[in-house]
């Protein structure tokens, strides 16, 4: 199947191809210097229980396995690291793990087929030994420790621990020193065959790329792969917040805060989820953005600084809305947020402001199409991983109405769904 998907609005188009191995392929031609490729698997830190192909066995894996696997995938049986292989083609490669997916990426300014072949071969040829797993445990333990020194990271992680009781969102993406110590080569091979099967994966190439050239490389590497169904079985999460408040003390110059709103209203339809994602983005910009009364009042009162930000995540696995920043008085920020949220949950959405914010959001969305990296990463990790489509999202942003927001507001802003995490300076610094 090879389908050309066009957006007249954006004056862009991409090819969508379903390879016989099950791999979902997107080729997005773009006349820029850099060509960017991303290969993602729907295996992130929240996926710590799974079942294969209608079988009855549920497999539980230690926290941090997806991230650990990511670290190990660039090691090869021939002793040559994948980075070394990329060094020969000049591609700049990287990998990252999020809550929902693991991505392997490279950017290049030439030799695309060669680099693409390296990427695919590396992702589909696991090589784990007792020795290389043990060595990685040391490296990742360092990474985990470094995260423990980052107050912003800690503040956000503590917020997730407030919002969630059972979900693996509570755990750092890298896991803990204890959990990764339980990882073995066998376990990694099992996870690889479950989650790194092409049917669970997406490839996108954006830039000077031709669909035939890309599919030819895929055919070479994946001709003998059989599609396999893997079902992630995340823990059932109750709708209520686990605890409303967390506090830590760290070496910071000023208190940091993260306010969160837990949302359990998640539609099974990808189109509905995209629409709600857009509505939540719009609410963030309309009610908590720089052109809004809330931001300006708190800014003038010296309660927040330009570091203040408001954003949300909405997908099939979880949904939350968050405000973060630094403040001398996080409690007052929380009070201001609570009363503002209560007021906007009930009031009609101001039509003119809505229209202005919608237009601004749409314009910023258009700007994303100036970068092959932004296009490829967003197309895959924001949309395809969750069953969505980047052009459809553009259409949604064009046609969103105030009524759409009015339907979401009352269910989103319920006081019992609020929580806050604060990182305060150490006593000696006060």
């Amino acid at each position: 199947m090879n389908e050309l998907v066009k957006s007249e609005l954006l004056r862009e188009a991409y090819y969508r191809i379903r390879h016989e191995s099950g791999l979902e392929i997107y080729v997005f031609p773009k006349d820029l210097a850099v060509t960017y490729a991303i290969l993602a698997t729907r295996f992130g830190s929240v996926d710590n229980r799974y079942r294969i192909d209608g079988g009855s066995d549920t497999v539980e894996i230690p926290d941090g396995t997806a991230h650990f696997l990511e670290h190990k995938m660039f090691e090869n049986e021939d002793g040559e690291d994948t980075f070394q292989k990329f060094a020969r083609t000049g591609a700049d490669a990287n990998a990252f793990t999020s809550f929902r997916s693991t991505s392997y990426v490279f950017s290049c300014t030439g030799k695309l087929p060669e680099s693409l072949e390296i990427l695919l071969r590396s992702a589909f040829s696991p090589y784990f030994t007792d020795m290389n797993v043990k060595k990685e445990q040391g490296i990742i333990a360092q990474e985990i420790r470094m995260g423990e020194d980052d107050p912003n990271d800690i503040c956000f992680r503590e917020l997730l621990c407030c919002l969630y009781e059972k979900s693996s969102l509570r755990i750092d993406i890298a896991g803990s020193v204890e959990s990764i110590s339980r990882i073995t080569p066998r376990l990694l091979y099992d996870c690889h065959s479950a989650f790194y099967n092409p049917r669970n994966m997406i490839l996108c190439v954006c830039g000077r790329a031709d669909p035939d050239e890309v599919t030819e490389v895929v055919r070479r590497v994946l001709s003998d792969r059989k599609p396999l169904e893997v079902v992630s079985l995340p823990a059932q999460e109750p709708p209520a917040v686990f605890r409303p408040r967390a506090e830590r003390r760290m070496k910071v110059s000023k208190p940091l805060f993260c306010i969160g709103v837990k949302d359990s209203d998640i539609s099974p339809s990808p189109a509905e989820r995209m629409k709600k994602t857009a509505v939540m983005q719009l609410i963030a910009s309309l009610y908590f953005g720089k052109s809004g009364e809330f931001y300006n009042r708190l800014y003038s009162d010296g309660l927040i600084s330009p570091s203040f930000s408001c954003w949300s995540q909405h997908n099939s696995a979880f949904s939350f809305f968050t405000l973060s920043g630094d403040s001398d008085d996080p409690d007052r920020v929380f009070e201001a947020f609570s009363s503002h949220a209560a007021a906007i949950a009930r009031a009609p959405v101001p039509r003119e402001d809505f229209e202005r914010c919608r237009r601004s959001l749409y314009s910023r969305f258009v700007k994303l199409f100036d970068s092959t990296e932004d296009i490829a990463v967003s197309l895959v990790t924001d949309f395809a991983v969750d069953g969505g489509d980047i052009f459809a999202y553009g259409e949604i942003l064009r046609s969103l109405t105030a009524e759409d927001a009015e339907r979401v507001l009352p269910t989103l802003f319920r006081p019992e769904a609020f929580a806050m995490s604060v990182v305060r300076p150490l006593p000696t610094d006060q």
Partner: protein
Amino acid sequence: MPTERIVLGDGVYLNLLRCDKFKTNYLSVDFLANLSPERTAAYALLPPVLTRGTERFPDMISLTRELDMLYGSRIYPSVAAAGDVQLFGFTSSPLRSEYADGTDVTGEVLRLIASMLSSPRSVDGCLSSAYTESEKKIMIDRIRARINDKAAYALRRCSELLSEGELSAIPLLGTEEQAARVTAPFLTECLKTARESLRIELYAIGSFDIGRLTALARELFVLPGRRTPAPLVTERNPRRHHARRITETQPITQAKLCLGYRTGCYPEDEALPAYSMLTEVLSGSPTSKLFMNVREKKSLCYYCHASSNLPKATMIVSSGIDAADRERAEEAIIGEIEACARGEITDEELEAAGNSVANSIRAMYDDPAALKSWYLGRGLFSRAMDPDAFLEKLLSVTRDQIAEAAQRLSLDTVYFLEGNGTTEENSSEEEDHLE
């Protein structure tokens, strides 16, 4: 990509890079001044204060709403340093008219920036003291918050130690005390100086009507009675220390080790391509020596990379390590540099460095902000070569030339930031000393 540099007036330049592959244009306005204890904090504070409001759009609400109407444009305050020079101003990426229902968003945004300079929110000719005080508080918080990112903090401390006693040791936002002294009247005077007698560099990258843009920029940025800007200077200091050691402590779990080198290679030096290739061989790619050998093979650190300050001819290798590995990590890093000096660079390493540098330089052509920094930053100290012309020079560098560049490195300062085994600061005086 054709570039044009147009003299609009005394010390006012418009730099044009034309291309039509983007949906947005890139605009920036930079004022250039030498770093100074008296003015650096004020100059850093000017752009954020000016983006708070103008006569016509007196507060952030009305200003942001206007920008929303200009197709979601944003005007960002900016501040940077190159050598002993501070650059402050604004950047924006307005949507091209083809994607904005034919509206000339670029021209409108340029007008808005100009109005921030010519008619900012003022009371009796003086900039708003409310805005000044509120932005000052935020800037002081930012200065204090420098301690939050430990890796960046250690790198900056090492850099300050390398340039002790020079203008470039002045922090980009000034010190907390310097910032605290800035008042609205003083800021008003700084704005006047900036408009009348600082060098102004405008950049426009993208697709536009050159004649119209040039006329508009001249009208908006060349004040009658402008004076010739004072020349910008960057002090040069050769080697001063022989591997002096400075250790500081903080309640952290991962220690930071920074090795500060003098490179002996200034921007106009013919050896610049060789020196650039040296840094590439050391840490330009994941197959580079520091990453591959110190991090991957010896597992001595989580990160390890070299960063250069070209106008000051310094290089810092910074790493995050276990405190217990300090000596081994230091030896390993120095060992890699010595290997380069002996010419022990494999064909593969050389090829990988060339590939990676080619990739990153070509990629700049997709990134208008990177192109602007390239031309503006390099143009301050020597004739800025086009990135692809410089790439050609890089790719013709030989192993021997890289070895010679490595031989010129001399270790000046070793900075070590270690944990004190607690979650508390060891003493508040230490903190004062650090700052």
